[in-house]
């Protein structure tokens, strides 16, 4: 096990910079998720840690060693690929034992290690099968087994669940998290799915266009997103954004007043701001709330999602209670001022 530190890491492809000086510290035994939309550089960053991409500038430390010029096999890492990358002509056992075979371990020893990993992942019955005889979920587990057998300092996962169906994804999500708790190893996990990031991570690194937008625990990111991008990326349904003007300790859209808490706000009077509020921070009020004109109602069973508009701007509310309402109705809603996120419209940075 080891910590991983990225120091001003850059990647340049033919004069185009795709990773712009990334600094991330991953502690020993931490589960860190790199998340962002496709093309944000998260996979490239992971592959740079793995040694599959050259590091154009900066340093990658694994433990106390700078691994920039080390080949992948010397970095003591294991990687689980999106396509699983199982060797098609080898059995499950051979796949899992390949790294030990390469290390020159004795056959009996390899067998013991493979069986140990197979037991953890419930693969014992499949050891003599070939990858083509396995289901997607089983292949996924074999890929993890291959990583476990190595007993590496760091596990790297590159979108390992994207090829599975939704139900299996949820199950495997839990299995990977359980595996982390059991092994206590350092794990770096890449995904574009913010739910995966939120549910699995000790620490999330949100990336966009080769920049790190924010690093923090899932709830820290959820509760205090540093900028408009993170605020919109984390959470589902996404945060409501209303465009208004900051004046007299509140936000004004037209002449409707949107309340803000007493927290200090770094904006001058009259500054154009984005007023952000998560859908679950809306509450139905009987009389004095803001008028939400209902467009669509989506009952999910556990919650009711109401899509509508206030002062001409689109707003989604998520309510625990069930209620009868129809498109065109006007609901009175209150915003919890302590849960309001204010962003400068120009810089898109948080200002409260």
């Amino acid at each position: 096990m080891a910590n991983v530190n990225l120091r001003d890491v850059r990647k340049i492809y033919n004069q185009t910079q795709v990773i712009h000086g990334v600094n991330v510290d991953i502690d020993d035994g931490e589960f860190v998720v790199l998340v962002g939309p496709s093309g944000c550089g998260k996979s490239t960053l992971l592959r740079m840690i793995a040694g599959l991409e050259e590091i154009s500038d900066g340093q990658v430390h694994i433990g106390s060693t700078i691994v920039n010029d080390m080949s992948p096999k010397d970095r003591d890492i294991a990687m689980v690929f999106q396509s699983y990358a199982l060797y098609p002509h080898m059995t499950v056992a051979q796949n899992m034992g390949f790294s030990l075979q390469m290390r020159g371990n004795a056959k009996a020893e390899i067998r013991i290690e493979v069986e140990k990993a197979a037991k953890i992942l419930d693969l014992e019955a499949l050891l003599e099968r070939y990858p083509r005889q396995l289901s997607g979920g089983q292949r996924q587990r074999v890929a993890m087994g291959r990583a476990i057998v190595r007993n590496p300092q760091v596990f790297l996962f590159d979108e390992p669940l994207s090829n599975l169906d939704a139900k299996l994804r949820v199950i495997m999500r839990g299995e990977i998290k359980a595996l982390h708790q059991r092994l206590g190893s350092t794990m770096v996990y890449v995904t574009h799915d913010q739910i995966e990031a939120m549910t699995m991570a000790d620490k999330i690194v949100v990336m966009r266009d080769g920049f790190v937008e924010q690093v923090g625990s899932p709830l820290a990111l959820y509760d205090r997103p540093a900028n408009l991008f993170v605020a919109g990326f984390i959470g589902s349904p996404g945060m409501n954004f209303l465009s208004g003007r900051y004046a007299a300790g509140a936000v004004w859209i037209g002449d409707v007043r949107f309340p803000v808490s007493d927290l200090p706000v770094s904006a001058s009077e009259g500054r154009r701001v984005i007023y952000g509020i998560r859908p679950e921070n809306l509450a139905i009020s009987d009389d004095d709330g803001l008028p939400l004109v209902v467009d669509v109602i989506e009952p999910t069973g556990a919650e009711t999602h109401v899509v509508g508009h206030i002062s001409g701007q689109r707003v989604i509310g998520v309510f625990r209670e069930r209620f009868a309402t129809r498109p065109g109705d006007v609901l009175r809603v209150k915003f919890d001022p302590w849960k309001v996120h204010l962003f400068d419209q120009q810089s898109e940075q948080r200002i409260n």
Partner: protein
Amino acid sequence: MTSQILQLVLGLLAMPAIVLAIILPGELAIRRFPQKRQSSLRPWIWLSPVLALVGLVIAYPLAASIVFSFRDATASKWVGFSNFVWAFGSAMRPVLFNNVLWIVVFPLLTAVLALSAAIMLDRVKYERIARTFLILPTAMSFVAGAVIWKMMYTYEPPMQPQTGTLNAIWTAITGRMPIAWLIDRSVNNYALIVVAVWMSIGVATLILSAGVKNMPRELVEAARIDGAGEWAIFRFVTLPSLWPTILVVLTTQAIFSLKVFDIVYVMTNGSFGTDVIANRMYTELFVKQNLGTASAIAVLLLILASPVIFMNIKQIKSGGGE
């Protein structure tokens, strides 16, 4: 000129006319059957022109060859197995041995070189140009290739100026005696095989390149992380993944080895111990005018090639890359 145009027009009209003459009455005939039978009969009606053509150019000659192989030189009387006894006798033994040499050396040499080329091409920037150069000889007829290589192999007695490319280089560099590439029995068969390799390597490389390109990049990356070096990656990942494709190449070249003719005919015409089955068949038929022995060789060739062909077809059908 006008008669040629007339022939062309006639040909253009006659072919569809023949096809129609078969299909139209057939269609009319099956109309009388119930709907269900019609759909099972119809493919046969439409396939019949092709089947007739296949019968004419493949099945009939095949049957005729088998019959001729049991008759004498002029096909005038039955001679039993005597043509086959001759074919397995001492006259044919060195010829058969040469084909064994071809079938072992030629596919292996081609496959090894083409595989190295395919893997190396995958790693260079100017892949397209390099591949074009490799494929160029393939565009040439084997006869033309053989003529070129005959000049490469030209031998002049020692102390004479060496006009053959290879001997010019050989004598200039080593200062030793020139080599009679096509006469010296220790090298001449290999010299012929090299020509065939040169002509075939383009297509073989193309097939194997496709296999290399089809191999998921992540497979190699996974092996690299698992600690495999370049050789181990080749041995444990690339080679097994490409094995079905390699088999296709090997079997195709093996079939070629069995029926190799033009290179041998042009370069040595089978002299100096370089004769092969197909060239011997040509000699028996057109030089010695012995229909019986020539047919026996043809049948022998067919029997030898059949298992390889079946293997080849099976390999191609299974996807060649699964």
